[in-house]
């Protein structure tokens, strides 16, 4: 610790602050230094340390004094440390906190962590040795270090203080947010329990619930994001919101559907609708639940689920027979088709053209040839030429 000199904490013109870390305690060799916890700072030229409570107490040592350094892992009740081995004291060293030390190494104890990044930066600086290429002017010698501390007006202190204040404020904001969030969640939990009680009563028919009240209850569940305890759906159909949505979709999807051969995968619809909205987006479940209402609202669209699980929206006018006939025609004309080829022909997505071919096959009009080269469909000659 006798390699340290009192410092103003000011950086020179060509010197840059690389990293700083609070909660660092210094050790003179293996003994705790007679200093409190402070902030360790690494610049391109020096290693500095400032007392957190007494900002005037600041010390530094040039990086050129460092021989090598190593990590000391944390233990039970012990923080992680970086051990720094130093060259012998130079003859003309300025005064510092220690006149003499029997140790040739110091330790930085990281009580608030940060040792990994500090170690990394220290490694970088000591390999780059930037202090050699950008010499700084000799710091003006002063009578005592404490006096030097008083002359600083701007520089690292001001910046450091701002960073510290901002960090405290952010910490405070986050912890306040979490606190408020916890309180909010307690109230939300009460709502969940109340809704369960209501749902149980509806099930057991304790009381006389009108259809109106049921709809209202469902909309409450929707607002809170509580799954309907009876049906297990999050809100199912039957809320006004989905009714309106279904009508909106009925309007806006007609044209895109016609452009795409009368059928669109639900994920495609999701992207289309949400991109158009820009905000107040639909959830995937909103979309599914609205689409389920197409039939009951007598809208010209239908939600359809294929055997594979693929969900599509298709135009009601889009008849099944037409699709199958067109598939058969195209395949017959070309001799055989893969889903990719069919897709290109019709301008459909591969996913949907596959489904059409499967459908035609299911109806017995096409046969598949399933090989490593891919899945190819042929007209079913067994049926037509039998």
């Amino acid at each position: 610790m006798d390699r340290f000199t009192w410092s103003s904490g000011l950086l020179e013109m060509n010197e840059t602050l690389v990293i700083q870390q609070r909660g660092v305690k210094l050790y003179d060799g293996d003994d705790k230094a007679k200093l409190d916890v402070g902030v360790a700072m690494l610049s391109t030229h020096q290693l500095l340390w400032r007392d957190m409570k007494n900002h005037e107490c600041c010390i530094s040592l040039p990086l050129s004094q460092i021989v090598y350094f190593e990590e000391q892992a944390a233990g039970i009740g012990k923080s992680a440390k970086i051990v720094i081995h130093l060259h012998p004291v130079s003859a003309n060293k300025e005064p510092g906190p220690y006149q003499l030390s029997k140790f040739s190494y110091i330790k930085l104890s990281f009580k608030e962590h940060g040792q990994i990044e500090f170690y990394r930066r220290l490694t970088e600086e000591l390999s780059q040795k930037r202090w050699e290429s950008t010499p700084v002017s000799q710091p003006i010698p002063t009578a005592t270090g404490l006096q030097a501390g008083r002359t600083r007006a701007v520089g690292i202190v001001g910046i450091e203080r701002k960073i510290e204040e901002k960090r405290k404020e952010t910490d405070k904001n986050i912890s306040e947010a979490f606190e408020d969030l916890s309180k909010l969640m307690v109230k939300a939990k009460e709502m969940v329990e109340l809704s369960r009680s209501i749902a149980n009563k509806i099930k057991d028919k304790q009381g006389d619930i009108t259809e109106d009240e049921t709809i209202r209850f469902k909309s409450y569940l929707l607002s809170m994001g509580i799954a309907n305890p009876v049906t297990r759906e999050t809100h199912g159909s039957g809320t006004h919101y989905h009714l309106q949505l279904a009508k909106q979709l009925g309007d806006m999807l007609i044209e895109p559907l016609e452009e795409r051969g009368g059928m669109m995968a639900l994920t495609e619809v999701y992207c289309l609708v949400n991109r158009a909205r820009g905000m107040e987006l639909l959830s995937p479940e909103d979309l599914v639940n609205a689409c389920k209402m197409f039939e009951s609202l007598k809208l010209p669209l239908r939600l359809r689920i294929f055997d594979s699980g693929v969900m599509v929206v298709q135009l009601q006018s889009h008849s099944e027979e037409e699709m199958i006939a067109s598939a058969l025609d195209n395949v017959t004309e070309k001799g055989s088709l893969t889903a990719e080829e069919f897709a290109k022909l019709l301008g459909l997505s591969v996913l949907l053209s596959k489904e059409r071919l499967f459908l035609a096959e299911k109806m017995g009009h096409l046969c598949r040839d399933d090989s490593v080269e891919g899945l190819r469909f042929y007209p079913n000659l067994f049926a037509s030429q039998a």
Partner: protein
Amino acid sequence: MHRRGVGAGAIAKKKLAEAKYKERGTVLAEDQIVQMSKQLETFKSNLEEFASKHKQEIRKSSQFRLQFQEMCATIGVDPLASGKGFWSEMLGVGDFYYELGVQIIEVCLALKHRNGGLITLDELHQRVLKGRGRLAQDVSQDDLVRAIKKLKAMGNGFGMIPVGSSYLVQSVPAELNMDHTVVLQLAEKNGYVSVSEIREGLKWEKERACHVLDHLLKEGLAWLDSQASGEPQYWLPALFSELTSRDVTPEEANQMTP
């Protein structure tokens, strides 16, 4: 539930039932619904207050979002169920995740010709971040996972397969059973796998290994390198790292299928 009847008889019957219940000290469901409506109003204003103070936290901090989601799950609330939910409307949680859903779908679609509809969570993460631009908010892998879970509702085969220390995200309804999954996990180390590796590593018969590999080829999830020294290698584009691959256009991909 049954419709309320009209007429004096029905009214009398109802009064009797009410009296019976009140006698036993049971609160009626319809009374509770009224109570819930009041509590909902209170909750709504609490949420509004919370939002006015902390709405930015949700968008700015992935840590906060994680905590928020876990708390909701604990109490049995799904904040992403509907865009009409309070959470979505007032905190803007919904828009964040639903938009992310759109971006995920678009990335998966754009790369499907190359990887057959299978992509590592890491690559998906990188590409989504790139697509969002420098000024967009940070998105964590947890955020992606939650958005993907929601996409499942639309039935397009969105799923996550645990592989190595992370996941593969599946975006096509290809049938992948345990056998396929296990082979994918085996291939994760080198990005490819061979029949003998499978036989050694999993102790399978040759037929079983070939069956699985053929299926992966057919689904476009694996590419065959029959010119590899030794025996043919089955490569999985989903597992290609940036270093060992270059982007392939759909036309090139078509030419490559045997």
